[in-house]
C-alpha cells in the first residue's frame, strides 16, 4: 500500500545517521589512530586501548556529521555528494546537528575517562579544527583549504600515542606531519579529475582557482617534504630498518607517480590516468607506512 508520509517527517533511520559519520574516512582515522597507539613504547590495558580508539572513531564521526550538517547546501550541488542523507531529504538538519554534537561530546568525555586529559584535549581540538576552522571558516574561502584541512586528519596517530603515553614525543609529531603533507597531493589528485564538480559547487579548490598545471606542480612539490618526513624516523633512530626501507621504497614510487602527474598535459578527466593512479596509490601508501611502523615496533 502506498503512503504519502515524507521521509523527512519520519523519525531518523539509523542507516542515515551512520552515513553522516563518513564511515569510509573513519577507516583511515581508526587505522592511523590504532597505529599511533600501538607504536607507543608504553603498553595500554586492552579495554582502555579499545575505548581510546573507539573515541577517536566516534569523535571523527561526530566531526564528519557536523561537516555534513554545515555543508548540506554544497553537497546538494555536487554529483558525488547529492545523495547524502541531508541533501537527499531523508534527515532533518536539527536531528543531524544533535546527533553530531552528542557524538563529539560523548567521545571527548569517554576519552578523558579512559585515557588522560591531554588525549581528550587534543581530540576536542581536532574536532573543533575540522568542524569550525576548516569546514565553517576556510573551506569556502581559500584554495589552500585542503592544506589546512589536512591538519585535522593528521591528529589520530598523535591522539593514539598520547592516549597510551600521556605525553607528546618526536615520533607522533612526525606521523602528524606525514599525514599533513600527504593530504594535499592525495586530495589535489582527486580534485583534478572531479574538478567540474567542485567548480559547479563554487568550492575554491586549487584546480578551479589556479588551474590544472599549477595544481600538478604543487602536487610534485608537496611530495618532496612528505617523502623526507616519511623516511625521517629511521635515521633519527625512532624506528628500525624494516620501516625505513619500506618508507624509502614507497616514497620513491609516490614521487615517480607525482612526476607522471606533472608530465601529464591532459585537461579532460577521462585522460587523467596518472592522477587516478596517484590517488589510488596514495591511500595504499599511508596504510602501508603505518602498518610497517607497527610491524617494525614489534619485530
Amino acid at each position, binding site marked *: *500500500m502506498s*503512503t*504519502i*508520509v515524507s521521509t523527512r517527517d*519520519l*523519525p*531518523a*533511520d*539509523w542507516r542515515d545517521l551512520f552515513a553522516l559519520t563518513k564511515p569510509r574516512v573513519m577507516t583511515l582515522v581508526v587505522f592511523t589512530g590504532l597505529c599511533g597507539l600501538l607504536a607507543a613504547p608504553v603498553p595500554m*590495558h586492552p*579495554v*582502555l586501548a579499545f*575505548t581510546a580508539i*573507539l573515541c577517536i572513531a566516534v569523535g571523527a564521526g561526530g566531526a564528519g556529521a557536523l561537516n555534513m550538517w554545515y555543508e548540506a547546501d554544497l553537497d546538494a550541488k555536487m554529483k558525488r555528494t547529492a545523495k547524502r542523507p541531508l541533501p537527499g531529504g531523508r534527515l532533518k538538519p536539527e536531528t543531524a546537528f544533535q546527533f553530531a554534537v552528542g557524538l563529539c561530546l*560523548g567521545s571527548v568525555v*569517554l576519552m578523558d*575517562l*579512559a585515557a588522560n586529559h591531554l588525549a581528550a584535549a587534543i581530540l576536542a581540538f581536532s574536532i573543533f579544527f575540522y568542524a569550525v576552522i576548516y569546514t565553517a571558516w576556510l573551506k569556502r574561502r581559500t584554495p589552500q583549504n585542503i592544506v589546512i584541512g589536512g591538519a585535522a586528519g593528521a591528529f589520530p596517530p598523535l591522539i593514539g600515542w598520547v592516549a597510551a603515553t600521556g605525553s607528546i614525543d618526536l615520533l607522533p609529531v612526525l606521523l602528524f606531519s606525514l599525514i599533513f603533507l600527504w593530504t594535499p597531493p592525495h586530495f589535489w589528485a582527486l580534485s583534478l579529475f572531479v574538478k567540474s564538480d567542485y567548480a559547479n559547487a563554487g568550492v575554491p579548490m586549487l584546480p578551479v582557482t589556479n588551474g590544472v598545471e599549477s595544481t600538478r606542480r604543487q602536487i610534485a612539490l608537496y611530495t618532496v617534504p612528505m617523502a623526507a618526513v616519511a623516511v625521517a624516523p629511521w635515521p633519527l633512530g625512532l624506528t628500525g630498518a624494516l620501516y625505513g626501507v619500506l618508507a624509502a621504497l614507497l616514497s620513491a614510487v609516490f614521487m615517480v607517480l607525482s612526476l607522471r602527474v606533472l608530465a601529464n598535459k591532459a585537461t579532460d578527466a577521462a585522460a587523467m590516468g596518472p592522477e587516478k593512479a596517484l590517488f589510488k596509490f596514495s591511500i595504499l601508501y599511508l596504510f602501508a607506512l603505518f602498518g610497517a611502523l607497527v610491524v617494525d615496533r614489534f619485530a
Partner: protein
Amino acid sequence: MSQPEDEVVRARQRKAARVTALLLFGFIALTFAVTIAKLTVNQ
C-alpha cells in the same frame, strides 16, 4: 494521519528506540569496563 502512514511512523519509531537502547546499553557497559580497567591499572 491515515492508518498506513501511522504504521510506517510507528515502525520507524520502534526501530529507533531499539537502536537507541542498544547504544545506551553499550555506552554503560563500556563505562563500567573502563572503570574496572582503570582500577586494575592503578593497583
